[in-house]
């Protein structure tokens, strides 16, 4: 049986709806992407696109993604397509550095909407892996 996927997010709204452990990143969406990249360098591979949602870095303060952990007992290998995707996502963020929407820095009601949409876009993927426990 495949190992349990890892959920990376800076969205507390989503983290509360994940069944079991969640890799919660205290910080910006960019920090989530950096954490994803670190994990990919450790042999994990992306299961979801790191830029899901049609929301720019200066709109959406949250990022979430699912990763497949490295296979136990296998030699370390870095997934080139996962690495390329996360590097491309980082490049999108760098292209508008200084304008990023940050958690806690936008109106609360709007932030809640962004959090809800981020969670909703992850819901289907989490359900497929039995990792979703609460309605959005």
């Amino acid at each position, binding site marked *: 049986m495949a190992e349990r996927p890892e959920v990376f997010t800076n969205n507390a709204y989503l983290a509360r709806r994940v069944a079991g452990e969640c890799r919660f990143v205290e910080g910006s969406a960019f920090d989530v992407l950096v954490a994803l990249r670190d994990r990919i360098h450790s042999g994990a591979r*992306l*299961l*979801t*696109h790191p*830029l*899901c*949602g*049609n*929301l*720019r870095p*200066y*709109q959406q303060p949250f990022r979430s993604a*699912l990763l497949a952990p490295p296979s136990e007992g296998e030699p370390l290998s870095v997934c080139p*397509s996962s690495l390329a*995707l996360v590097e*491309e*996502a980082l*490049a*999108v963020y760098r*292209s*508008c550095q200084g*304008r990023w929407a940050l958690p806690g820095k*936008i*109106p609360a*009601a*709007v932030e809640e*909407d*962004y959090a*809800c*949409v981020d969670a*909703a*876009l*992850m*819901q*289907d*993927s989490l359900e*497929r892996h039995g990792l979703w426990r609460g309605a*959005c």
Partner: protein
Amino acid sequence: MKLELHKVKVTGVQWGPVTELRNGVLTVNKAELLAKVSGDERLASLDADLALPGEKTRIVPVKDVVEPRCKLEGKNEVFPGFIGDVESVGMGKTLVLDGAAVVTCGKIVGFQEGIVDMSGPGAQYTPFSQTNNVVLIFTPAEGLERHDYEEAGRLAGFKAAHYLASAVKNSVKADVVETFDFPTLAQAMTAHPGLPKVAYLYMLQTQGLLHDTYVYGVDAKRIIPTLICPTEVMDGAIVSGNCVSACDKNSTYSHLNNPVIRALYERHGKDYNFVGCIITNENVTLADKKRSSSYATKLAKMLGVDGMVITEEGFGNPDTDLIMNCRKAETLGIKTVLVTDEYAGRDGASQSLADACKEADALVTGGNANEMILLPPMDKVIGFPDFANVIAGGFQGSLHEDGAILVELQAITGATSELGYSKISAYTM
């Protein structure tokens, strides 16, 4: 499959005692319209207003735009799965109120949606400044969940569009009748010998809440790529549930009038043999992306096409689907032309797409969504103007004290349409 579009030109819209169309002016009985679209307890309030070309009017935030259509002859009704039954459409005769539109306006979330200015510099960027608009403004019942609010607003737009066409269908005569026929595959394969076979790969936004598209009422994220007859699209088989990124979301109006399909028809039999339209989705998981891109391009290969036009909806995540589709088609020996838009920064100097490949060497752009525009104050605002500060392409301080809004083109509905249903174009110097 043969479809006749019976187009009646609409040059104005007004309120009046009876819904009718005379001398190009659509008169609408407001109470009857609201009665037809109300009754959904998910909506706490529902109102309607009018916005005409040239008026100093701003509509914000726009959710969808729908062209009034109904069937005159043929089985079923338009917008199958919502207004009509789920039986196939795309045959018979369909009435089109050409020049009219239903615009839905509601604050589903505290961001996104779009702006339509009926005059001024912003009007130059949206095709819906040129339509005579019946605007529906709705607010949700207390505690309504966002998915339900989106669905209720979406359905209200379809009902209104269908009502307007249906109310006048027995008393109007078409100004223009356009006929679109699509052959069987057996006929298409042997037609126009010597001309290259061409298909259209039609990408649909399907990431989730506020990012959805429906085909015959089915959430398109649940489909695998399949063939659709272009005439089915003209009868509303594909509708928008996407209210994110106003500039490049494909409104239901844009689907109904998809200019790529029309262009493929126009040169069919002259420069190429247009043999099929394939719809595919843009999902979140990488496994779905692989499956859909492989399946869609496999269908194209089974059709034996030499070339394919691929249109994207959205940006970022869908850029990956676009590039996968391109690379896989080219690997199968199918030449591709991509239609997208760009997020190249306010100075246009940044990389335009989040993904790329060397095979993507023929590309049409809908424009740079990051370009800035100052929208002057308007005499009248329909909707919820305070949300300009948190609208896509806006930022804190976007809304000036005098009512002007400084935004990126991203905020303007349809400004950089990736179907090409927009007002931006180019010419050779």
